[in-house]
């Protein structure tokens, strides 16, 4: 599903965010990415849906070699990946409903299915009553849930979540985690960067720890491993 081989990433400003990363993640896995702030977690994640390009190294996602992927194929790569962005990335002038529907309009889903699936997923993240709100009218946690809803609404093979519980209270966090586990049970691969010791230690999954751009630990049913 995801294969990275000896990945280096140096940003234009000279910062080296990733320093030789190799990883193999199989279809259906649930993986936490942990590590201190600035370690390179988001960078690692951004490579997968081609928000960033590696400086060197090989990446294969869904059997697609990103090195040789043409510019015009990128949208199709991204449609198979649901991304929960650390900064939400909601369209500010669209309502909650329209933001989620957008991901389905892009794949030319029928209006009936769009309506049904958007309402279903809004129900799932508990925002049915705010469907007509625009992002500015929502709290940070609510925006985050919209971002999650948009990421999972078209049943992608891979869901990548960058701190999806970063702005949520514990109760909502556990609900979101339950949702992600459910999706994972149906075979979706989940990659989740997080700083939540409670979640990682309670819901035991594979843990990849990144520090200074290198993988320092990769354990199945691992621990968070950092003091908070």
């Amino acid at each position: 599903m995801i294969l990275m081989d000896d990945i280096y990433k140096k940003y234009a400003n000279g910062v080296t965010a990733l320093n030789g990363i190799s990883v193999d993640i199989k279809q259906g896995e649930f993986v936490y990415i942990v590590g201190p702030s600035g370690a390179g977690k988001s960078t690692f994640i951004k490579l997968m849906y081609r928000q960033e390009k590696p400086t060197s190294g090989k990446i294969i996602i869904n059997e697609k070699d990103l090195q040789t992927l043409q510019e015009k194929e990128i949208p199709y790569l991204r449609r198979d990946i649901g991304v929960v962005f650390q900064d939400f990335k909601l369209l500010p002038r669209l309502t909650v409903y329209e933001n989620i529907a957008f991901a389905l309009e892009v794949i030319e889903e029928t209006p009936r299915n769009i309506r049904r699936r958007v309402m279903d997923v809004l129900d799932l993240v508990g925002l049915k009553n705010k469907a007509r709100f625009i992002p500015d009218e929502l709290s940070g946690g609510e925006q985050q849930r919209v971002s999650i809803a948009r990421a999972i609404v078209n049943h992608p093979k891979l869901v990548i979540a960058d701190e999806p519980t970063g702005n949520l209270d514990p109760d909502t966090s556990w609900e979101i985690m339950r949702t992600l586990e459910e999706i994972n049970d149906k075979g979706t691969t989940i990659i989740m960067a997080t700083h939540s010791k409670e979640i990682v230690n309670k819901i035991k999954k594979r843990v990849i720890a990144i520090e200074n751009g290198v993988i320092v630990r990769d354990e199945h049913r691992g621990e968070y491993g950092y003091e908070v």
Partner: protein
Amino acid sequence: MKFRTLKRHFREGIKNIFRNGWMSIASIGAVTVTLVLVSAFLIIMLNLNQMAKKVEADVVINALIDLTADSEDIKALGEDIEKLDGVESVIFSSNDEELKKFMDSMGDEGDSWGLIDQDNPLRHTYIVQPANPGDTEPLAKKIEEMANVYKVNYGQDVIKNLFQFNKYARTIGLVLIGGLILTAIFLISNTIKITIMARSREIGIMKLVGATNNFIRWPFFIEGMFLGILGAIIPIMSVLGIYYYIDANVVDRITYEFFDILPFNPFAWQLSLLVLAIGALIGIWGSVMSVRKFLNV
């Protein structure tokens, strides 16, 4: 692209016009001003053109024949003229016919010239119709040099002035119209650019969610088209209204023979369609131009 997606793009494009509020109104205003001026120029230019054509087409060459020419000479001359390149028709008009025409053209006054009837001072004449009005002058010069031709008349000055005037009017008009259209495109793409600065982030997000460039471009295309069409409404109504008024009220009061504007139907309708098309094109061009550089995210 599926039909429902096209519908979606129309919906989004129209929604964007409202979402952009005053910026949309500014764009529509730019198109409106441009199209009002463009249609005024087009009306004037096309009508001048029409009048000039009419005058040109009316021009014939009158070849006056020498008094010394006998009927054989006259016949030979007629055949020679007919053989010239660019001659549409040659009609012989005897001096009596010429006199009658002259008297008719004088109206009531003509009768008092009746006494000359016995001693006709006019000459036999060949009336030559050039196939192409533009050839009138060289043709007249050639005929003038032929044997037994006393003189040619073809409204030399009228033709020269008309051609000159028409040429200038056309050039100036086209330059002005071109300039106006470019200005409008610039204004629109600028107003859309201002809104798009805010939208460049949105475009980036759309791409991250898996939208293709075309998917993003389409609503802009629709938006531009509607901005252009909305901007064409006032100009079209003015064209139809003012032209109808002129056609119905002013033309009959002006009695110059050549003053005859193109008829309201179909000219005003054709012009409206043209103005609508120009408006839509300005809008589409302006918006598609402005979205282009934000797509490389």
